[in-house]
């Protein structure tokens, strides 16, 4: 389980996270929704230790990762993987090399075994005959799929998704949503998704948390969020600015 306790973070005097508390259930899909530029990605980067909070605690399976040094943090990060907004594929490597990278780094599998796993993972995300292509030759949706294949290649306990459907057409968005659902079902992993795509959030989430002005103003099941009395949540769900 992931638990954030009174997390604060400011950049150049501007508070992005303000005494934020959040509990993320293990083996469930939690979607964190909020306005663009509202600190969602910053929150996600706190969870994986890419950014340290100014104050507060972040527990991953009971370990406060804020107190860990780089080497210990690296050990905790082995439980994680992350799909970045633009997939963050290594552009000097082929698709196959990208997906194989975590395997080469953290396992002692043979070249043949790695190749087999890479092919299987690419197939799992619906991609064939792309192993030797460079990331620059792929469309946005394909890049996200490759990013997802790389994210799940080590079967991590926790997968973080930074805006997985942003910039994709509705069909591709739905395909990515289905992939996330399938991946979570198959691997029983804890998925944390940052999104401002409400339709997608209600489709895939077990839990939804709303980030507003640096705080989680409500967290619960999609049904609970739908019946919320908080006006900003209502507006956000309805998509009205007035």
């Amino acid at each position, binding site marked *: 389980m992931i638990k954030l306790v009174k997390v604060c973070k400011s950049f150049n005097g501007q508070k992005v996270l303000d005494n934020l508390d959040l509990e993320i259930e293990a083996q469930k899909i939690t979607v964190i929704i909020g306005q663009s530029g509202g600190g969602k990605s910053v929150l996600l*980067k706190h969870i994986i230790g*890419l950014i340290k909070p100014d104050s507060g605690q972040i527990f991953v399976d009971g370990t406060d990762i804020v107190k860990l040094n780089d080497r210990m943090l690296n*050990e905790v990060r082995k439980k994680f993987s992350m799909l*970045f*907004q633009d997939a*963050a*594929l*290594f*552009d000097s490597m082929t698709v196959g090399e990208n997906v194989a990278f*975590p395997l080469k780094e953290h396992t002692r599998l043979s070249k043949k075994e790695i190749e087999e796993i890479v092919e299987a993972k690419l197939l799992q995300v619906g991609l064939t005959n792309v192993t030797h292509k460079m990331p620059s030759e792929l469309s946005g949706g394909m890049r996200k799929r490759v990013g997802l294949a790389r994210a799940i290649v080590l079967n991590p306990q926790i997968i973080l998704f930074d805006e997985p459907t942003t910039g994709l057409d509705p069909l591709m968005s739905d395909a990515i949503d289905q992939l996330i659902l399938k991946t979570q079902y198959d691997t029983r992993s804890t998925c944390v998704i940052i999104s401002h795509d409400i339709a997608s959030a209600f489709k895939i989430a077990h839990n939804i948390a709303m980030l507003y002005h640096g705080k989680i103003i409500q967290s619960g099941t999609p049904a609970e969020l739908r019946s919320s009395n908080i006006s900003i949540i209502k507006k956000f769900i309805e998509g009205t600015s007035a």
Partner: protein
Amino acid sequence: MIRFFEFTGKKFISIVEEFGKVMLLFLSAFLWMFRKPFRFRVIIKQMEFVGADSVSVILITGAFTGMVLALQTYYGFRMFGGESLVGATVTLSMTREIGPVFTALMVTGRAGSAMAAEIGTMRVTEQIDALYTMSVSPIQYLIMPRILAAALMLPILTIISDFIGIVGGYLVGVEFMKINSGIFMSKIIEFVDLADIFNGLIKSACFGLILSLIGCYKGFYTKGGAAGVGKATTQSVVYSSITILISDYFLTAAMF
């Protein structure tokens, strides 16, 4: 007046701060060199990029530098009948000074800028963050191999530059200006010590360290998208070149 001191003080603090960050990066890269996995393949790849891929540039610049040096010294020394010293002068200049400095400046332009651009692009496209999330240290994977490769390859490139520069000098001095070949060579042997060559190579290793460290530092701390990458690349070339020339003076003063 207060504003002037405020501005100067802020600038000074920011320079000290930046220098501290560069040193911390170097220390971190140095420590990662001794931790597993040792990244031999990445280091070899970088050695190829910094070293082997720079040979053609070094051959051309080295040869013409030696040739023009021979031409200029010949015209100068002829005024007082010192043409016989052209070979020794070219060799001493190449090995002590021009070989290491020109090689470093050429590699800065070719490889140092590429380091800043590549790492900078990786920073702004979150590829460096991706490495962190995969429990891979970007310092060990990206920075240490580049610094090590540059520090190892610069002396080798300098040897090539020195050699081809002397050959160029010989060509101009002996073949074009008709200096006696035996005298040309004997004066080189008479005036040039092994220490001249060796100290030049130490200098070039230091320059390799400087250009790669600044290139990597500028790339690693890039901010602000494509414009940021462009700025980091330009700054890396300018700062590396300036630092190389300044440190050259102090290294020369200490060594010779």
